[in-house]
């Protein structure tokens, strides 16, 4: 059961690097082997072909014409040259202009084309062999025409040399592979050390410690570290919000609950029915305000939670204003109160959380209706690169002491000063969550407070 929930650990990075290095060495090895074999064969062929041509030329040089006949005084040096290929059998033949074999083996193959120098393959007995043919031309009184010298040998020395070259190349490649593997493993180990350090730091951390990690890390791992730090920051904000909410709630609710209990007791003990009724009406009034306060507390808690937890989505600020208007119509407007809605004809695109923005707007509108002077207006407009959700009334606005505390949470005075401060606090939190701000100003016509948000470029 728990095993199924354990996150899967995939192949280690070291193994991945090992596999990659092995693949490189393997593929490289095949390529190098093919290339080395080809090069080795080529080099061996070049080297030993030169030997053959040298020997054939040597023999050609030793031919003289005696009594009208070519005579070969076979030079030992030619065979010394050929015996450098220590284990190869040697075939040779000297042919005169009529195709007669003067000396050597009559079976040695002649080249297919008649050129002054030809290199070609053939067989010597049952073994494959390589031949060189050199033609020397005579213009003597007794003999005029070519004499062809053919020299060949078997391929053992060539094959040995080609194999040697390929083997050396492979040995070098193997060594290089080992060195690459060693360095790759060192690099992986050193690159992963910060990760282990971060893991250790987290493991040894106090559960309540949500301060950012300070471990240095390479760029790739820094992304993980920073994400962790961001996560912890959000976690801390949530924790703080919850803690504050609880302490606020406790603080805010204790006094009204106590007051209600005292008044109810007084009412219960009041013998005079008229005064009793007045007391009960006051309790009822208090309970109503108390309910509103509770609602606002929860609303603020929700707004703060959503600020971190809910992804922003593109929306039209006019829709927000309409939503505020509709919700307030039933819940907020006192009897006979009128709110003017002032919306631009074009879409005002922002990115945000509909619920939070609506809550903030409702609070601003509620404040205006409760504390401001009619007529009250709700609207949306663009100001430069910003979108404003504004609420306006004809009064002079709240006193500077309230405005100073804007954006704070509760203070002890909130309770006595009413709940306007709390509404502003909610609006202020929402503004902060949306990278915006709360903007207010008074002019001759009245007081305006606006939630200003960055404008999204409409697609």
């Amino acid at each position, binding site marked *: 059961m728990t095993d199924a929930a354990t996150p899967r650990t995939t192949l280690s990075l070291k193994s991945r690097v090992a596999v990659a290095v092995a693949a490189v060495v393997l593929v490289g090895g095949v390529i190098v082997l093919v290339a080395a074999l080809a090069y080795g064969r080529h080099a061996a062929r070049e080297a030993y072909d030169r030997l053959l041509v040298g020997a054939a030329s040597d023999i050609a040089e030793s031919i003289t014409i005696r009594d009208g006949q070519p005579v070969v005084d076979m030079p030992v040096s030619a*065979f010394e040259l050929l015996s450098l290929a220590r284990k190869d*059998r040697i075939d040779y033949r000297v042919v005169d202009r009529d195709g007669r074999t003067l*000396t050597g083996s009559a079976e040695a193959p002649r080249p297919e084309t008649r050129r002054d120098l030809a290199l070609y393959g053939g067989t010597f007995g049952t073994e494959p062999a390589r031949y060189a043919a050199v033609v020397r031309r005579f213009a003597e009184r007794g003999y005029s025409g070519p004499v062809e010298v053919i020299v060949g040998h078997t391929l053992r020395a060539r094959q040995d040399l080609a194999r040697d070259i390929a083997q050396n190349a492979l040995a070098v490649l193997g060594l290089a592979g080992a060195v690459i593997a060693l360095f790759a493993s060192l690099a992986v180990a050193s690159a992963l050390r910060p990760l282990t350090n971060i893991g250790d730091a987290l493991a040894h951390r106090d559960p309540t410690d949500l301060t950012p990690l300070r471990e240095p890390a390479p760029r790739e791992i820094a992304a993980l570290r920073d994400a962790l730090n961001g996560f912890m920051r959000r976690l801390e904000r949530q924790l703080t919000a919850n803690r504050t909410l609880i302490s606020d709630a406790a603080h805010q609710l204790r006094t009204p609950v106590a007051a209600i209990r005292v008044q109810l007791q007084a009412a219960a003990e009041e013998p005079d029915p008229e005064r009793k009724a007045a007391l009960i009406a006051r309790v009822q009034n208090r309970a109503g305000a108390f309910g509103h306060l509770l609602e606002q507390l929860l609303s603020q808690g929700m707004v703060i939670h959503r600020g971190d937890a809910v992804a922003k989505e593109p929306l039209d600020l006019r829709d927000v204003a309409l939503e505020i208007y509709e919700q307030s119509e039933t819940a907020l407007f006192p009897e006979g109160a009128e709110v003017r809605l002032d919306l631009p004809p074009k879409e005002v695109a922002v990115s945000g959380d509909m619920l939070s923005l609506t809550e903030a707007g409702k609070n601003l509108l509620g404040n205006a209706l409760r504390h401001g002077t009619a007529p009250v207006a709700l609207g949306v407009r663009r100001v430069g690169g910003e979108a404003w959700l504004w609420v306006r009334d004809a009064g002079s606005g709240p006193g500077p002491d309230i405005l100073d505390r804007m954006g704070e949470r509760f203070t002890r005075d909130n309770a006595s000063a009413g709940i306007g401060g709390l509404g502003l606090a909610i609006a202020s939190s929402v503004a902060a969550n949306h990278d915006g701000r709360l903007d207010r100003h008074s002019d001759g016509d009245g007081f305006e407070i606006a939630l200003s948000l960055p404008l999204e470029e409409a697609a």
Partner: protein
Amino acid sequence: MIRRALLHLLALTCAMPAAGQEISDRLGPAEAGHELVVRSTTDLSVLRPVLEDFLAAWPDVAIRYEQWLSNNLYRLTLEDCEARGAGADLVISSAVHHMVELVNRGCAYTHVSDQTLALPDALVWRDELWGVTREPAVMIYDRTRVPEEDVPRSRFDLLDLLRASDGPYAGRVATYDIEASGLGYLFAYADSLEATTFGGLMEAFGRSDTVATCCSAEIMEGVLRGDYLLAYNIIGSYALQLAEDNPELGIVAPSDYTLMLSRGAMIPQHADSPQLAATLVDYLLSDPGRAALAEAHLITDLEMLIANGAAAPSLGSSALRPVELSPKLLVASDRHKKQLFQARWRDAFPANSAKAP
């Protein structure tokens, strides 16, 4: 006794039909399951103790030994090779240029063993031809007739001795007839490569009516008989053996250089029992085999030459020139080379060439 042994040797080496084998004998137990055919130019009487030592270790093996003249042995082996016929299981010849040519034609069987790998590079070719003996080419002389101060210690001494065409040595010096003897040709060819003295020597031989004739035994017999005072380029193994019974036979390893011949052993490609032949080769190259060959004077080193007075104690090992078993020897078998060489020889020995077979 001595004379009889010599006559026996003579009979073995010279008195036989030109194209036929000289001798054929069977060694080892009659009921042996395996018979190894060995064809060689070596006198059976010389090699017999070595072969018998080998057979003692292999009771189920018998050897049919055929003794041939080198040129005939070459022709026969080549015919077998071209016909892909199973002739001999092992061929051992002193005319190593023939052996090199046979190997070059692809007539040989490849064999590698610890023993063959221990051979120096000069005495093995392609793991198909191995040099099994070490025999110097020496001068021999008659101690009773050649005064001590006349004894040539080097080729230069010999040249001085032959300078006068009417001196005491005119007509009394012998050497191989290179046209009749493959070994004689090989020695003369090797001499021509070693030093320029060879040209002078040929001239001096011609001027002093030197006799060129066939075969070691005949020449040695002539020296012992008193026909010749001195002989040049005689295979040392036979001379050393003969000198054991004939103290009047003097031997000189020339101090300018002494050719060292290693008889070449080769297993024909189509031999019936190549494995058994390889065993015999390994035996010949092994310590016991080498000891037996040394006993038969077929392996001689510098110490032995100095010990029996053939070489001066000052002779360095660099004076010993091995006849290398390498493709360079193919030149010796080249048709034109041979013709040119023989033409030169005939110029030097006009009388001999007339009666050459």
